[in-house]
């Protein structure tokens, strides 16, 4: 008997609301495990999980690795920079080679959107998307929703704002799919050229003034301004971005309201968010990190623990 319908976690676009709820609920159970003196449970004893990282990552990789180890799985790490990918090996060959070595699950980050979906054609073990290009980053959105639920006790009916580079953000897209499915109201806020055309079709509303967003929202997810995009003329300067879209101390002081601040990290202090804001009580950024381990444990447990799975 399966606990969730999904065989893989490729994104939140196709997954059912019930599956999302199950993952978050079981996530809270693992949160309790993380509070124990011995933070390890033997559920995935003897399972092999390979982490394929074709793109740099610090916290997602550490978070997945911790989650896997705390479930007692055996972990194999692979990063593109030190592998045969440098010698011209294709994704298909890499994955088939790893697969014949009897892996039970693949966690992959890759710069190409849809690469995880492609992977499902080559191997028949559960695939977990740890970020595929500008497409989706489902575990990040799941941990964001878990953190929202932890803070508010619910997700449905809340007003959640997302501010930053929506166009290039897989975090934003997964959050939009997930939050809308869970019944939250989502408003995105960005410079117009950093928003997809027709994004309203996903069920979100759009605003261009971050002050309007603060007035409206119960919680705001502040996206990182990716410095690598600065040079190509998308953002004139970090100071200008901070002036118009930064979640600054003065701006929040003006609004005088209780607003929960989230950030997927890594933070550019003084650009998209002020240091004082990031360190304040209204920020749940460190809760998000802890929930990240718990929700990833939940995903792996639910995907790998199923009997149907051969």
């Amino acid at each position, binding site marked *: *008997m*399966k*606990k969730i319908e999904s065989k893989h976690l490729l994104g939140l676009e196709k997954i059912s609301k019930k599956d999302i709820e199950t993952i978050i*609920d*079981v996530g*809270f*159970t693992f*949160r*309790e*495990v993380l509070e*124990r*003196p*011995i933070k*390890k*449970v*033997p*559920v995935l004893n003897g399972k092999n999980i390979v982490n394929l990282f074709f793109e740099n990552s610090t916290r997602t990789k550490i978070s997945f690795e911790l989650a896997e180890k705390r479930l007692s799985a055996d972990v194999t790490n692979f990063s593109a920079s030190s592998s045969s990918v440098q010698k011209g090996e294709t994704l298909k060959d890499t994955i088939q080679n790893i697969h014949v070595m009897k892996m039970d699950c693949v966690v992959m980050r890759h710069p190409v959107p849809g690469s995880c979906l492609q992977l499902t054609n080559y191997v028949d073990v559960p695939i977990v998307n740890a970020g595929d290009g500008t497409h989706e980053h489902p575990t990040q959105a799941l941990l964001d929703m878990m953190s929202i639920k932890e803070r508010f006790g619910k997700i449905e009916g809340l007003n959640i704002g997302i501010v930053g580079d929506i166009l290039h953000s897989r975090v934003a897209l997964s959050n939009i799919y997930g939050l809308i499915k869970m019944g939250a109201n989502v408003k995105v806020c960005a410079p117009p050229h950093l928003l997809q055309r027709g994004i309203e079709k996903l069920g979100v509303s759009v605003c261009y003034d971050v002050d309007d967003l603060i007035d409206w929202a119960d919680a705001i997810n502040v996206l990182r301004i990716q410095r690598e995009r600065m040079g190509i003329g998308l953002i004139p300067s970090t100071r200008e971005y901070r002036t118009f879209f930064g979640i600054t101390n003065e701006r929040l002081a003006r609004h005088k309201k209780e607003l929960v601040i989230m950030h997927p990290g890594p933070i550019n202090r003084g650009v998209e968010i002020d240091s004082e804001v990031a360190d304040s009580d209204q920020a749940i950024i460190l809760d998000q990190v802890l929930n990240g381990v718990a929700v990833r444990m939940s995903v792996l*447990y639910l995907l790998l*623990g*199923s*009997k149907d799975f051969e």
Partner: protein
Amino acid sequence: MEINLHKNKSILLNKEQISNLILRLSHEIIESQKNIDSIAVVGIRTRGEIIAKRIIQNIYENYKKKIDLGILDVTFYRDDFSENLGSPKVGPSDIPFNVNNKNIILIDDVLYTGRTVRAAMDELFAFGRPDSIKLGVLVDRGHRELPIRADFIGKNFPTSDNEHVHVLVSEIDGEDKVNLVKY
């Protein structure tokens, strides 16, 4: 050939009998320990938790002692967890006291193969090193698959393989009853 799908059900214990058995378990637990303050009662989710709470209430009423209560969800420690994923809900364990140097009384509703108890003992050690662990159950139905026995037993019911002992408690099921169900 017609297959009979109707379950054969008979009542093993009624409300009053259950209440008396739990009361007797409570007294036995207290009598077994020299130092009452070192006792902690840990119930295994879900019906063991209810029985543990009643035992603590009994001890409070009869001995005026507040005993620590813990709750274990052993799902993550089961050896058959991949076959057992259909279990309705995984919940967090709740051990709100320091396990070190405690004399733990583990409580479950039915003792059967012993695998749940094995899982519960493993999980307890993730919280610390208790001085001792003892086991109390409402019903022992036999068929052990591991070298485990109960220290406090409400009632022994030798059963056959095609029978199941269902413990119902009013907090969850609306009534107190123990049924023997034949498949």
